[in-house]
Each structure stands twice: as structure tokens, then as C-alpha cells.
């Protein structure tokens, strides 16, 4: 495995060579059409980018030469320097020098660039159109240099999507072949299938790796955005970023871009106070906003923290009651984390109630939906007067997910591990019927438990969540899932193993069924339904409310 640094370097070189090729092309064109402003602008842009990239990665010579050339071209653009024969020669030589420097990045024996050429560049830059100064003759660079093609190819994300789908199918067939070969007991087949197994895995991870981008590509857009919003809001905000190098699937990053922007905007407009208010509260005038990415097991965690006014929990509780989501009594005993989770409820946009005081809740359900759609999780923590933190837990890759396989009523199901908290086995006697549902004490926490068969298969009018007699057997396997800070125990008939699965999205017309996040094919070839935990939780809550209303 190459180090990230090595990879960055290779990307830089490949890009730089591309710039170099483009520069050569444009500058030759420019020689024929010196008045073409568009060409000039393009050359200018290329040099500018090259300079910035080289500087960022620490190749100062390249950035230095680019800078000189850039200056020269800006003079030409401003008509302060004639694109005359002499100048052209020097510029061509300058571009050649750039190419040479790029080619020799790794060559330790490469000495200093030709000082005469550098001086010539300085002369045309410094002396403007003063042509009296003699440009020294430079030894021509060897023009018969090897032609080389770029090390980098651009590829449409669509093509990578397609590759990923194909490899997903391959993995499924691979599993199938591996399980068949195990049954057949044929040594030759076993050898082939184990080799196939390895290669497929390699292929899968290579394709996943090809789709990864660093989070920095998104984070780097925020300093400017934060500055603009803060200026418009007349606030002082200091943004810290960390974890640029964390890698994540490009499509996942794309999907959460808007959400992150939304949260950042919220944090500045509603979270962070105006300087005078902050000083009154004894806080520094400049608000702190931090956006941090880190790897968390197989996932990527993005945390957005502000030190603003925080969320007023009593206002949230009041809003929950006002909106008839819970009764007064229930709200009082609601743990803080659960109360906060109501902020993500659709329509809980509290614009009137909460926004004036703590300013959250606007469109948070949209953010949540985006995170849900890629199988991620979002959590909010807040302390009034101290600040708010949003934590997004995102899968690194769309395609492969760790999942728990189980069976209910002879149908195979899977639940992505990102939504599972723990698995417990409990005797029926440990389950208690309370208020029409079953509850269980799991490590000191009272958790609502539901028999999945009851939730999924019993006629909707006949559902009875509290009926223990329907449970088969003495010991029940319960998968505790968590969604929006609320835990729910799902009783399953048979619990199988933990496995990496490739989720295939459902095709039309089934794609609108939100109970299922997709399907996966098991090694046996049978179809396994992937349950969508957010949708299952919502379905349970709505059914429970319907029953309670009757």
C-alpha cells in the first residue's frame, strides 16, 4: 500500500504534467494569435493553479518558476509587455524548464535550474518593455525529449458506479460458487474458488478505493462560505478544520454536502451570537466553529461544533407537547438526548417557538433524510449557553456494509451494523407488557421491544404489540437498533451471522417502498431483504399511535 503522501505526489505530478502539456499547446497557439485574450486567460489560469499546487505540496522551485511566468503573462495580458520574438523565446524556455522540473521531482541528481534562464525571466518581468537590456543566450534545451502521456485519467463517476454494481454482482456469484464448492468436496474446485474469492475481494476493494476522495475537497470550501455568512450576519466566527485527509466515497460526500452546508449556516445564523451579546455573556467576541472529520471503526465521523447559545431543552419539550407528539407527563421524563432527537422530526421546524430562543430545527428533517439515505446516523448534543454539536456518522463506502443477518417467518433479512447497538438473548419472562407494548431491561435501560413478525406479517388491524403469547420458544433473540437517539429492540426468529453485504437498491416500481433499503443476495442465491431501520422505527411508532388512538 502506498502512503497517502506518495499518492498526493503522484497526483500532483500527473496534474502538473497535464498543465505542462496544455501550456505548451496554448503558448504555441498564442504565438500565432498573440491577441487572443481567451488563450492568455487560460495560460494564466494554468500557471496560477500550478503555482498554488506546487506551493501547497512544497515544490518551491516549480512554484517559483510558475510565478515568474505568471507575472510575465499578466504583463502581456495588461499590454505592458509585447509578445515579441525575444520574449516568446524566453517564455518557451521557461515553460520547458517547468516541464523539466516536473519530470525531475524525484531525481535527486538534478542540479539547479539554468541561472541564465531564470535571469532572463526576471529581466522580462522586471524591465517591462525596456528592450535595451540584452537577454542572454540560453543553451537550448534538448527538444527531443521523450513524449509521455499523463499518469492520471479522469473518469466519470457514472462509470465507477457501473463498475461497483458489476463487482457487487460478482461478489454475489463468488459467494455462491464458494458455497457450492464447499458442498461438492472437489479439491480442484476448492482451489479455484478460494482464488476467485481472493481476487474478487481485491477487485472490490480496489474499486471502492478508486471512488474515495479526501474530505478536504469539501472542507476547503467552508472557510469562504463561513466568512460570507458571518459577514452577512455581522458575526465574528473562527472556523477550525481538521481531518482533511480522511477518505470517503465521493457519492456519500456529494449527498451530505448540502446537509453540512445547512448545518454550518444554521450554526452561524442561529447558534453563534453577535459579538456584543457574547461579550455580555462572558464569552470571547469571536465565535468558534469547528468541523472535524475522523475515522471511527469502519465509518467516518464528521463533527460540527459551535460555542453559541445552544438549544433550550425546555423549549424543545414545550414544542413536543404543543405539537401533540407526546403528552406532558411523558415529556417530563424524556431523557435529554431523546428530547433533542425530536428536532429531526419532520415538520418540527419550530420556527416560531425554538428559533427565537435557540434557533434550531429549521429543515433538520431534510438533513436527517439525506444522512438516512446513505445509511448514516446523525446525533445532536447541546447545552444551553455553551454550544451545540452535530455528529454525523457516515459509511466510508456505499456498496459494502457490515450487516446482521436473521430470519423472521422464513424470510431472510439484514440490518446494517451502523444501526445496531447490541444483540441480546432474553427469556420471555424478562419481557413485560407495559402500555400495549413489550419492554425489557437491557443493562439498566428500559427498551421497547417489538416482535418483528407482529410488525411485518400480522394484518394491520390485528396487530397487538403487547401479546407475549405469540413469541416462539423460551429464549428470544433481540437486536437492539438505534435511530435518532431512540432505541428499539427487534425480536427475530433466528439470528444468523454478521456479514459484509452488497446492498442492491430496489428497482422501480419497488423503489418507493421505504421499509426496505434494498436487497442483497445470499451465497445460496436467495434474496435477503435489507431492512431500513429509520423506516421500521417510524412504521412502528405510527402503528403504535394508531392502536393507541383506537
Amino acid at each position, binding site marked *: 500500500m502506498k502512503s497517502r503522501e506518495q499518492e498526493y505526489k503522484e497526483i500532483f505530478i500527473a496534474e502538473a504534467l497535464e498543465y505542462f502539456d496544455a501550456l505548451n499547446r496554448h503558448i504555441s497557439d498564442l504565438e500565432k494569435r498573440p491577441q487572443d485574450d481567451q488563450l492568455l486567460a487560460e495560460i494564466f489560469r494554468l500557471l496560477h493553479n500550478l503555482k498554488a499546487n506546487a506551493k501547497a505540496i512544497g515544490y518551491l522551485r516549480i512554484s517559483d518558476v510558475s510565478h515568474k511566468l505568471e507575472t510575465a503573462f499578466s504583463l502581456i495580458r495588461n499590454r505592458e509587455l509585447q509578445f515579441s520574438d525575444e520574449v516568446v523565446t524566453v517564455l518557451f524556455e521557461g515553460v520547458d524548464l517547468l516541464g523539466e522540473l516536473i519530470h525531475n521531482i524525484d531525481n535527486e541528481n538534478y542540479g539547479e535550474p539554468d541561472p541564465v534562464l531564470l535571469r532572463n525571466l526576471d529581466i522580462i518581468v522586471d524591465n517591462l518593455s525596456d528592450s535595451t537590456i540584452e537577454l542572454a543566450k540560453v543553451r537550448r534545451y534538448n527538444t527531443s525529449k521523450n513524449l509521455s502521456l499523463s499518469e492520471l485519467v479522469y473518469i466519470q463517476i457514472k462509470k465507477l458506479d457501473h463498475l461497483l454494481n458489476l463487482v457487487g*454482482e460478482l461478489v*454475489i*456469484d463468488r459467494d455462491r460458487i464458494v458455497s457450492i464448492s464447499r458442498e461438492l468436496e472437489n479439491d480442484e474446485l476448492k482451489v479455484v474458488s478460494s482464488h476467485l474469492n481472493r481476487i474478487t475481494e481485491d477487485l472490490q476493494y480496489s474499486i471502492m478505493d478508486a471512488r474515495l476522495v479526501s474530505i478536504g475537497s469539501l472542507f476547503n470550501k467552508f472557510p469562504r462560505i463561513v466568512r460570507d455568512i458571518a459577514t452577512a450576519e455581522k458575526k465574528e466566527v473562527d472556523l477550525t478544520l481538521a481531518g482533511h485527509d480522511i477518505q470517503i466515497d465521493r457519492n456519500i460526500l456529494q449527498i451530505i454536502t448540502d446537509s453540512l452546508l445547512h448545518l454550518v449556516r444554521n450554526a452561524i445564523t442561529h447558534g453563534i451570537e453577535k459579538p456584543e451579546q457574547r461579550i455580555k455573556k462572558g464569552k470571547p467576541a469571536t465565535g468558534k466553529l469547528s468541523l472535524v472529520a475522523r475515522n471511527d471503526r469502519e465509518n467516518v465521523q464528521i463533527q460540527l461544533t459551535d460555542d453559541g447559545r445552544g438549544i433550550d431543552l425546555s423549549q424543545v419539550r414545550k414544542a413536543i407537547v404543543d405539537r401533540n407528539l407526546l403528552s406532558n407527563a411523558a415529556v417530563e421524563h424524556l431523557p435529554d438526548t431523546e428530547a433533542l432527537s425530536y428536532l429531526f422530526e419532520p415538520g418540527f421546524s419550530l420556527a416560531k417557538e425554538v428559533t427565537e430562543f435557540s434557533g434550531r430545527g429549521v429543515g433538520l428533517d431534510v438533513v436527517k433524510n439525506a444522512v438516512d439515505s446513505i445509511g448514516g446516523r446523525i446525533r445532536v448534543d447541546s447545552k444551553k449557553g455553551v454550544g451545540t454539536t452535530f455528529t454525523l456518522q457516515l459509511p466510508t463506502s456505499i456498496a459494502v456494509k457490515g450487516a446482521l443477518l436473521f430470519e423472521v*417467518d422464513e*424470510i*431472510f433479512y439484514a440490518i446494517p451494523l451502523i444501526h445496531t447497538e447490541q444483540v441480546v438473548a432474553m427469556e420471555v419472562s424478562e419481557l413485560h407488557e407495559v402500555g400495549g407494548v413489550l419492554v425489557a431491561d437491557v443493562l439498566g435501560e428500559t427498551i421497547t421491544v417489538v416482535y418483528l413478525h407482529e410488525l*411485518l*406479517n400480522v394484518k394491520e388491524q390485528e396487530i397487538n404489540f403487547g401479546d407475549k403469547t405469540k413469541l416462539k420458544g423460551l429464549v428470544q433473540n433481540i437486536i437492539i437498533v438505534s435511530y435518532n437517539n431512540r432505541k428499539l429492540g427487534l425480536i427475530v426468529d433466528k439470528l444468523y451471522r454478521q456479514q459484509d453485504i452488497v446492498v*442492491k437498491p*430496489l*428497482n*422501480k*416500481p*419497488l423503489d*418507493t*417502498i*421505504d*421499509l*426496505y433499503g434494498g*436487497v442483497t*443476495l445470499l451465497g445460496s*442465491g*436467495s*434474496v*435477503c*431483504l435489507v431492512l431500513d431501520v429509520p423506516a421500521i422505527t417510524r*412504521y412502528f411508532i405510527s402503528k403504535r399511535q394508531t392502536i393507541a388512538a383506537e
Partner: protein
Amino acid sequence: MPTKKDKGQATPALPADELTPATTNGKEEADKGKVNEPLLHLIVFKLGAEYYGIKIEQVKEVTVTPAITRMPRTPDFVKGVANIRGDIIAIMDLEERFRIRPEPAESENGVTYTLVIEAKEYSIGVVVREVPQSLNLTVSKLDKTPSFLQDIAVQENYIEGIAKVDNRLIIVLDMYKILSGDEIRQLSS
């Protein structure tokens, strides 16, 4: 996408002259038509007691029904999903969909067949009890506007016409309209 036809399981069960097994390439069959009038090539199957037809262009494949995984909490006409050559396809029960009373007689040995249909926006599988047949008929034999159809609201009109072949009545379905917008919405609720 090439039209795949599952050979070997289509033995003519209908005693009609123009019925041929649903295995051969539809275009060639159509070209061999004896009249110059354009031909309509249908795949014919039985729902309830009646014969129904779908234009061959809309049928991607005919296969023995694979194992179907039931999908709880979907409308009754969705039998579930099946893995057909790596594609996960929704399997529909059109008898349920059209509220057709099923024939009491089950197919022998319990084998059913699935027509994989490619409509504009979706692929679905349709389960039928008997081996589907292939049928050529001239376009003029299709009555596109039987009077009874004119009473039905347009969005309900999944019937494209009625064809009469050898005293047999075949209801030609417009597969693009089989799932109405309403039903697709019903799926998501």
C-alpha cells in the same frame, strides 16, 4: 438488450392455428406472415378463465417462476421479489391486480411461469399458471375500441384492445399502464 426467450418449455397448449411456441424470434415469425398487412406478435397467457396477450416487444423473457421472496407490507398484488439472472425484479400477481377470480384448478405439478416485462420505467415479472404461447395476428383483428372500454376512465384503461382469433377472445394489455400512478403511490405508503 436482446430478447431472451426461454426455450424448451413452450409446448403449444392452445389448439389455435396461428399459435406457435413462444420460443422463436418474434420478428422472423412476423416476417413470414402470409399477408402484407402488418402483423401483431403477442405472447398469450391465461388469467382466471380468460386469455390475455402482451405485445412481444414488451416481454423480455419467459422463465419458470423462480423462488419468490415475499415482501411484507406491500400491496397484495406484489407477490414479492425474485432473483432473475442477478436482477432483482418485483413479481406481480395480475389476477390480484385486476381482481380476477382465479381458476380453481391449479397448474399441474405446481410449476408456474413468469413473464419478465420491460415497461418504460420499470421491469416486473408477471406470474401465469400455464405455459405462455406465441401468437401472430394481423393488426386488423385487434379491436381497439370495443364499446365497453369507452365507459372506463382513461387512467384505468390498461386494456389496449380485444383480439378475436378462431373464436377465441384475447384481451390485449398495455403493459405500460398496468401499474397506475395510484398503485405506485400505494406502494410507498
